[in-house]
């Protein structure tokens, strides 16, 4: 078990840098092909004469041509299965032809079978250890899978002047791409200049260079069109001229431009399946499922091997089954077919609901009351704090299956994110997607909604670190758990690792260099915002956001808003951190030793020793409220001593400090109820709705106490949710509903529910008595 709410969040598809950058479309051969007939067709293709190229390739599919030429031609015409058979036959005919193996491997890579591709490249290298194309292709696959060795392999290929020019050009382009992902524009410039010099007069070798330069322009927030034009002058059907800058728009969160450029890519090259896929994903990111499906289906028709496409289409089928509710309810967009009109809570000018919740139908009744309440509160809070009114409806999607959510976020499963924000659209895990964990979904929602504001208020001109920093900062300051929570492993890392300079903080998210660096970067970003608030005042954070929105970069923002150089800022921030957390970091080992001691004593049932050690750990780090918190150890030791009152005092302190361990807090709520501290019991239980909303007993107990406090309307909600959870004891659920409705004066509905309860349990005495009361008042 582990507390979870954070730091599996991401703004957008950052994590799929490599995967998303796989093949844009058909790959240029960069000199891997030597057959003159093939080269003739290739030249036609890469100069944009697609019809002529197709005819040319078709002409090569005959028995007079070598098998590998036929395979290449068939592949170029899009029939990858037949191409594979032909390569297989060619390989049998020429088992020691390493170049053929490399091309066959490239076909496997083109069908997303990386391991098989690597095997073939490896075979090629065994036959010919100096095979440049095998080395290049191996490095490319390693880069896609996130292997850091790949960069060294590319560098080695560039340095080796004996390598074919095409190989060195492609290696330069690959490294330039990584540099641009890391926002290292100068490095990218150098690499692209070198690649251009190597290309000489071979204009086809310049195509990717120009496209990458267009990407570089996007990264630098300049107009990419000059470079796009140059590429299209060489090959008017070169979709990558648009798709590469589109990609860089995407990773800098500018989704309007992303969509525009991917659209242009498919306009000039209709069979650019990767661009169709990315365009579809962008439509979905912008809450446009219909065109998303259209482009997914087009992409699938052309590239059925792509697992991301298959996943996305399956997700879209599921997506269509979601229940959609708009808030405030009864707003113009809240139900299909409703006509616009003035409703309370709606901006009369834009006539849009504030919030749209997309929930799985089986979770809707349970999550909707709490998710809507929390999200609307978050929207109000951030609107006020950042002085920004949303221009569109904020959409929140909650997924009961983690893999579905990850496919929604990244296209492929297997990543430990909890939430993602695309702008006005947020997607996140439901508590059911994190079963077995104490997952604070309320905090995740709060965090992601904060991203909506930072992204939209800055017009998507915002570095990752600042958006994450504000989200973390808002969790700590205005979220459901208002406390600064730094995970222990982060403090642990900071004993040996330095914080990144503020100007380079994005790289901590994008290209982490040690295991914990992404989470360390989240914390650093949050703490920077906290530091700004404390030393310069909260309005300066808003000013920073607006300055980013004006296109100012981080050094400029720090200078303009805070009057500091980034170097001075880093020094001051470091002092702040040392003051706030230096002592905790120093005593981390001692704290851990005391924790171990407390837990050992607890398992030995040495209650006094456990209490003493747990208290010592609490005194050293009173804000530590994760699942292994010493508060819980102390509470368990007090149970051992049968000192229930003291146990509950401890649990209450734990809860007031932000702790949310479900079982302990349910016991605390029951205790508080027994002590007639009803309002505190209600607060404890309501806080747990953001952790365990599918806990039936939680709703029954909360409803009962609310009803006891004559808060019948709120009690009714809890009972309705309880009923939606399909309780075994339906009689009890309907009786409670009847009781709440009775208190609310809805006698007819009350009668109906009580009769339903009695139908299941005729001898249910409280229900019998309630029926008498109802009928006496009807």
């Amino acid at each position, binding site marked *: 078990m582990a507390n979870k709410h954070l730091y599996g969040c991401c703004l957008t598809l950052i994590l799929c840098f490599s995967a998303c950058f796989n093949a844009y479309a058909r790959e240029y051969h960069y000199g891997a092909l030597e057959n003159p007939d093939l080269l003739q067709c290739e030249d036609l293709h890469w100069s944009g004469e697609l019809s002529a190229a197709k005819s040319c390739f078709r002409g090569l599919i005959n028995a007079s041509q070598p098998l590998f030429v036929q395979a290449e031609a068939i592949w170029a015409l899009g029939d990858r299965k037949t191409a594979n058979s032909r390569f297989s036959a060619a390989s049998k005919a020429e088992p020691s032809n390493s170049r053929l193996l490399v091309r066959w491997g490239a076909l496997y890579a083109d069908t997303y079978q990386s391991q098989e591709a690597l095997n073939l490249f490896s075979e090629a290298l065994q036959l010919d250890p100096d095979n440049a194309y095998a080395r290049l292709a191996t490095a490319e696959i390693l880069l896609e899978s996130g292997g850091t060795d790949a960069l060294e392999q590319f560098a080695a290929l560039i340095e080796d002047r004996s390598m074919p020019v095409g190989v060195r050009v492609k290696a330069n382009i690959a490294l330039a791409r990584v540099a641009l992902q890391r926002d290292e524009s100068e490095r990218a410039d150098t690499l692209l200049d070198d690649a251009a010099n190597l290309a000489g007069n071979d204009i086809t070798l310049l195509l990717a260079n120009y496209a990458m330069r267009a990407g570089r322009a996007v990264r630098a927030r300049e107009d990419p069109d000059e470079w796009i034009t140059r590429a299209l002058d060489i090959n008017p059907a070169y979709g990558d001229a648009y798709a590469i800058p589109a990609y860089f728009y995407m990773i800098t969160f500018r989704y309007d431009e992303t969509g525009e450029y991917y659209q242009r890519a498919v306009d000039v090259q209709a069979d650019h399946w990767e661009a169709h896929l990315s365009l579809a994903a962008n439509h979905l990111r912008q809450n446009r499922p219909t065109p998303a499906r259209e482009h997914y289906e087009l992409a699938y028709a052309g590239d059925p091997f792509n697992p991301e496409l298959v996943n996305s289409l399956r997700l879209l089928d599921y997506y269509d089954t979601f229940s959609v509710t708009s808030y405030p309810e009864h707003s113009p967009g809240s139900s299909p077919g409703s006509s616009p009109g003035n409703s309370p809570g709606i901006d009369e000018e834009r006539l849009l609901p504030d919030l749209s919740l997309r929930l799985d139908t089986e979770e809707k009744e349970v999550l909707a009351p709490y998710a809507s309440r929390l999200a609307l509160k978050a929207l109000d809070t951030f609107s006020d704090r950042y002085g920004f009114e949303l221009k569109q409806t904020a959409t929140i999607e909650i997924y009961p299956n983690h893999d579905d959510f990850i496919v929604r976020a990244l296209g492929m499963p297997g990543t430990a994110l909890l939430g993602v924000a695309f702008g006005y659209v947020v997607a996140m895990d439901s508590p*059911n997607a994190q*079963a077995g964990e104490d997952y604070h979904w309320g905090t995740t929602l709060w965090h992601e909604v904060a991203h909506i504001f930072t992204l939209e208020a800055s017009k998507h001109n915002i570095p990752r670190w600042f958006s994450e920093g504000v989200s973390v900062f808002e969790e700590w300051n205005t979220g459901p758990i208002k406390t600064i929570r730094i995970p222990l492993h982060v403090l642990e890392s900071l004993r040996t690792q330095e914080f990144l300079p503020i100007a380079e903080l994005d790289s901590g998210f994008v290209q982490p260099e040690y295991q914990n660096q992404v989470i360390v970067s989240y914390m650093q970003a949050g703490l920077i915002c906290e530091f700004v608030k404390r030393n310069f005042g909260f309005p300066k954070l808003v000013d920073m956001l607006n300055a980013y929105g004006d296109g100012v970069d981080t050094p400029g923002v720090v200078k303009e808003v805070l009057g500091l150089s980034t170097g001075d800022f880093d020094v001051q921030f470091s002092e702040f951190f040392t003051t706030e957390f230096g002592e905790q970091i120093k005593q981390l080992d001692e704290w851990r030793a005391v924790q171990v001691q407390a837990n050992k004593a607890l398992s030995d049932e040495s209650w006094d020793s456990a209490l003493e050690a747990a208290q010592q750990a609490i005194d050293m780090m009173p804000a530590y409220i994760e699942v292994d918190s010493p508060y819980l150890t102390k509470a368990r030791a007090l149970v051992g001593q049968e000192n229930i009152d003291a146990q509950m005092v401890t649990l209450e302190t734990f809860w007031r400090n932000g702790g949310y361990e479900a079982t302990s807090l349910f016991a605390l709520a029951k205790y508080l109820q027994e002590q007639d501290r009803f309002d505190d019991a209600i607060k404890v239980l309501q806080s747990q709705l953001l952790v365990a909303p599918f806990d039936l007993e939680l709703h029954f107990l909360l409803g009962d106490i609310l009803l006891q406090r004559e808060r019948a309307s709120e009690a009714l909600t809890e009972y309705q949710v309880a009923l939606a959870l399909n309780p*075994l004891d339906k*009689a009890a659920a309907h009786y409670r509903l009847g009781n709440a409705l009775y208190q609310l004066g809805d006698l007819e509905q009350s009668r109906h529910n009580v009769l339903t309860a*009695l139908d299941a*349990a005729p*001898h249910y*005495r409280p229900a*019998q*008595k309630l029926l008498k009361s109802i009928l006496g008042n009807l």
Partner: protein
Amino acid sequence: MSALHIRSVVTGSIVGMLLLLNTPSASAETHTLLVQGLGGEAWYQRQFDEQADTIGEALKSVVGEPQLTILRGSDANRQVVMDWFDGIAVNADDDDSALVVLIGHGTFDDVEYKFNIPGPDLSFSDLQQGFSQINVPAKVLINTSSSSGALLDALKEEPITLLTATKNGRERNATRFGRFFARAFVETAADLDKNQKISLQEAFDYAERATNDFYESEGLLATEHAFLQQPGEGQIAGRMTLANLGSQDDSMQSPELIALFEQRDQLDLRIESLRLRRIGMGEQDYEYVFQILMLDLIMVQDEIDLLDGVNGE
């Protein structure tokens, strides 16, 4: 071995009988055997001790101490179990019932199921032989052990109501079902019809749901799927009471109370009859008639409470 406030074992003797099935019958009795198997590890031993304590106490409240045989520790051996069956075979009347509860670990080697007890294990063949020699209309076997589902196929042709913690013999992991099944005996939430009694069906429903919820909430793949198999029309599980949640001392009932109880029983039958006709009625008509019957029932219950001196809460 933990303490149990019931005689630990009476080998081969049936001392008394008591009504367990709710079906009115003046002389019908239920002979009950609870066997606690080996825990193996201390944690399981504690679990099984607690389950046997809870279930034993509850059954005592229904069956009465003399009719309940509880075998645990070294007493829970094959010979004693078979002797118990022999005794029932000799002493049971035609309208009696037999209930056997097995708490512990089971194994299944793809050929035969065995319940782990000291000495030779209790095998499927033993259970089949034991039950087959008893000539009573209601035979019930509750087995909360791992692999207990192996009995489902093996006993499906037998007139035995069978509750197992697993759906087949291949679900071999130690089960959680027993813990929740025992909890049902003392949990008001398991009393779905609010009659202050826990039937076999209610205990099963409660434990099955709680077990499923456990696996879901822990994010674990469920390694057990409980099953309730009833012969014929399957009425026994709903009618067999396993625990009383309220006091059931009927010995001091006045003639007036007895008459009221009869009235209440009659109303119960009318309600049951109405339910059977529900499909052919409109929902509003059903609710209307049901409400009238309920008001009669409430009136009778009010009088019972008045005479009984209880407030009915």
